[in-house]
């Protein structure tokens, strides 16, 4: 058996002309052709900024552009209005090429009040020259306090060098609806469609799709607002852009990571998803609840995280390999069952959509902080398979792979994704559906006489498990130390052997894996090692640095346990190795930290222990996806290149 990790990203180097002015006859307005733009919509919670942005991204993807989105979500459902910290929104990076990360600073912002941009200004999200389309209604608000704040902010924005355009969004919407709060987002969508010459036909289709559960009246009203926003921009704004489509022959799908997980579960043939609501994982189960019942499966919402995995383990034990989808705090609660499933060798797929931790942490923000917990989080020796998806496409395919590995190796398989992948949208090649993705019917043939329930192959550690219903296969699984018959055994040699067999399976599995592919030269001054959702940002940063003549390459790991082989050999050819991750590490420059007390980022810990190479790390826990610019800076800092 061999699992070839296909390199999923192809760099597109064909240059596209940009900054060139063309006259579009249909829109009869001078529009600029651009290579890419980063757009942000920021608002109070509940104003529909995400719906607007996701629609804009979907329309753009459907027009053949590369897109990547990241949602800006406050933890509360309705934080106080006009608050800086409660800003809710979305960033969409749209390009002529494939887009693999959220990029650096925004080119255009739509802000529904003058306070919400500050949450993003604090995160250095904007630059001099960023266009800010600002809701104008606050200028004439009844409250003097608000009017003052508005004019102060306006001055400040101008000082910061933003290109501020005041837009009467509220007034324009009120011409069509009585409550502008409902529908302003679609008016903004219309405005953006005009600015970026998006197809209104596709926009209408999108509105029909997102409001499919609503009445025709609501759909019509939103479509009217869309057209009104488009018209207003046509008559009042001079800027207009075109982002040429990618030249692609293949058919593409566009979705976010949680949707990809849900479709992956469907494609894996797993019949049971047992879950408990937790941000940012839950939306995967929402979609599954809608689609799995149409394909011979069900979602079970358990009473708590422990019961969720217990239910999944029960279903798996009975032959229906199940999935449980959760995030950090849920993983913590599932610990005991995770150890049990390894001890009793029960197949199981565990998906952890990571968020900021420890404890409740940053529920809606991205972090890659659960790696060590996944690898070592249970008491005792708990060898296992841990995979990490680095793209939305991988979110889909890895679930299918996880189910197969779980059954073949009679083990829980952990799949790590994160909040960035969960809500980010990205197009990927429409997969060709294959029959062998789907779980085969469970084996109910009589159990072969004299084969024990843990008849470990001494070389590989593998064994075949009896499934309830198989005549003659009766056995009782247990979390206690047990012999090959699954009977409780406290004998020293039997526990030693059983532990060895449970570990050996994954040594056997590692032999089937390929070493990671090196992106760039095989030799150099610096090798960046990453995992998970940072792939696109690392690739872009490394390419930027390479273009500046820096001898840097990168590898990206998909398997964290067992590790992909050949790392030590790859490391030998680089003067420096540094992981780039979104989790906490101490700065090595601080006088308080010594090498023996410094907290490393999580992959760095693992690689240092595994390879005995002095591996450094760059990481932070700002709750944001890493931007290529930050990584370039870290590369230069590591190599002491003046910047």
């Amino acid at each position, binding site marked *: 058996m061999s699992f070839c990790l296909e390199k999923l990203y192809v760099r597109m180097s064909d240059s596209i002309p940009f900054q060139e002015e063309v006259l579009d006859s249909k829109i009869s307005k001078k529009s600029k052709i651009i290579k890419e733009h980063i757009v942000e919509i920021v608002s109070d919670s509940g104003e529909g900024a995400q719906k607007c942005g996701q629609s804009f991204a979907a329309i753009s993807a459907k027009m053949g552009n590369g897109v990547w989105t990241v949602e800006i979500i406050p933890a509360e459902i309705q934080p106080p209005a006009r608050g800086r910290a409660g800003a809710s929104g979305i960033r969409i990076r749209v390009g002529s090429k494939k887009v693999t990360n959220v990029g650096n600073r925004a080119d255009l912002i739509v802000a529904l009040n003058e306070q919400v941009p500050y949450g993003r200004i604090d995160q250095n999200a904007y630059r001099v020259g960023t266009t800010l389309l600002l809701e104008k209604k606050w200028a004439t608000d009844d409250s003097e306090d608000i009017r003052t704040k508005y004019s102060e902010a306006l001055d400040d924005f101008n000082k910061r060098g933003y290109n501020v355009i005041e837009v009467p969004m509220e007034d324009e919407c009120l011409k069509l609806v009585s409550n502008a709060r409902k529908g302003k987002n679609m008016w903004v969508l219309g405005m953006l469609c005009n600015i970026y010459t998006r197809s209104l036909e596709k926009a209408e289709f999108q509105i029909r799709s997102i409001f499919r559960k609503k009445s025709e009246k609501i759909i019509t009203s939103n479509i009217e607002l869309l057209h009104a926003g488009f018209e207003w921009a046509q008559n009042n704004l001079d800027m207009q852009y075109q982002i040429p489509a990618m030249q692609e022959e293949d058919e593409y799908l566009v979705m976010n990571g949680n949707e990809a997980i849900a479709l992956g579960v469907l494609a894996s043939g797993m019949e049971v998803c047992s879950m408990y609501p937790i941000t940012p994982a839950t939306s995967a189960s929402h979609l599954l609840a809608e689609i799995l019942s149409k394909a011979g499966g069900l979602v079970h919402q358990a009473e708590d995280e422990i019961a969720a995995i217990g239910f999944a383990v029960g279903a798996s034990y009975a032959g229906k390999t199940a999935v449980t989808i959760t995030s950090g705090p849920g993983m913590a609660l599932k610990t005991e069952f995770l150890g049990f499933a390894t001890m009793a060798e029960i197949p199981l797929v565990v998906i952890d959509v990571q968020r900021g931790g420890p404890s409740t942490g940053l529920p809606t923000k991205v972090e890659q902080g659960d790696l060590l917990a996944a690898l070592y989080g249970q008491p005792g020796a708990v060898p296992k398979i841990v995979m990490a998806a680095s793209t939305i496409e991988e979110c889909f395919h890895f679930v299918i792979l996880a189910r197969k590995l779980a059954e073949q190796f009679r083990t829980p398989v952990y799949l790590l994704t994160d909040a960035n992948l969960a809500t980010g949208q990205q197009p990927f090649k429409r997969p060709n559906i294959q029959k062998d993705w789907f779980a085969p019917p469970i084996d109910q043939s009589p159990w072969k006489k004299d084969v024990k329930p843990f008849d470990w192959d001494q070389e590989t550690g593998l064994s075949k498990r009896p499934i309830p219903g198989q005549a003659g296969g009766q056995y009782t*699984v247990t979390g206690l130390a047990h012999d090959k018959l699954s009977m409780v055994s406290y004998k020293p040699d039997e526990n030693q052997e059983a532990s060895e067999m449970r570990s050996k399976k994954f040594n056997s599995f590692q032999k089937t894996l390929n070493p990671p592919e090196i992106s760039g030269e095989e030799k150099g001054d610096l090798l960046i090692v990453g995992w998970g959702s940072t792939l696109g940002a690392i690739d872009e940063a490394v390419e930027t640095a390479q273009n500046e003549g820096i001898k840097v390459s990168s590898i990206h790991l998909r398997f964290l346990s067992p590790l992909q082989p050949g790392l030590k050999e790859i490391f030998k050819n680089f003067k420096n190795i540094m992981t780039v991750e979104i989790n906490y590490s101490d700065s090595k420059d601080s006088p308080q930290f010594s090498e023996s007390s410094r907290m490393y980022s999580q992959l760095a810990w693992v690689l240092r222990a595994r390879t005995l190479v002095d591996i450094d790390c760059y990481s932070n826990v700002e709750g944001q996806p890493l931007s290529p610019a930050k990584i370039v800076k870290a590369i230069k800092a590591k190599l002491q290149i003046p910047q």
Partner: protein
Amino acid sequence: MYGLKSNLECDTLSKHFTIEDYGKGVARWCPGCGDHAVLTNAQRLLKEKQLDPAKIVFVSGIGCSSRFPFYMDTYGFHGLHGRAFPVACGVKFRRPDLDVFVITGDGDCCSIGAGAWVHAIRYNMNMTVLLLNNEIYGLTKKQTSPTSRLGTVSNTTPEGSILPPINPIETTLGVSNASFVAQTADWNPEHMYQTIKAGFEHKGFSFIHVIQRCPVFQMNLGKEMATNKDAMYLLNHKDGIQVGADVSKTFNSKIEHDPSDLNKARELAMDKSKVFMGLFYQNKKAPRYDVHGASNLEYTVEQKEDVLSKEFDKYAI
């Protein structure tokens, strides 16, 4: 079982199971432990019903009684402390062909597993649940359990426990969607057998509370009940458990109780002066989650491919 049908055709099964087909090994409980009686009765029921041992799953948690599955030659799941219910529900969810039994103790069910217990009652999946309640932690050596009587002296309450106990019957009857709640005791094996049988025949979550002694740590538990026939009442009703004359005559006191009367059942459960044996409550119409779980089995790969393809279409560019 073999049998002659009314049309004189012989009804045969491919295999006839004997009691030995259901048992395995020698139970390692203490001599005099009530668990032995439950084990014997469970094996007797399986033989009586001629259930295929390969189609039975005994699920337990942790504790003395939870070793039960190891002594059955059926499929078994000796799981985690307090988590027998979620596992059993998971086993049953997509496998309506399996008969599921849950063996749990007072610590396992009423303490560490109390949350799962409440929800399992509500799910009302078709399974037979035996709560073996000896009112003490045995495996960990004599600690007070939530069902221990007020004043119980143990290693954790050396001066006597200070809180009133949980009454498992009262608690179960308090959860919405309870569908079968009965009580029996280890010293009346025939009554226990009839109760377990009625529980097995009920389609839903059959909760059977077995009062039993721990010969090591709770010697005197139920002594009064077991010796004073007047303290125990047999619940009689045409819709109740039909225990037969032999069992009936072991009770001096009997009362009529309609098992469809939930309020009356709760009243009886809360009556601290008496102990009632038999069926407190039954609702054959309570919604069953296992019926939902088995609602869409048997999809072909082609059907699944078709659904997936249509989902892809929705996301197509």
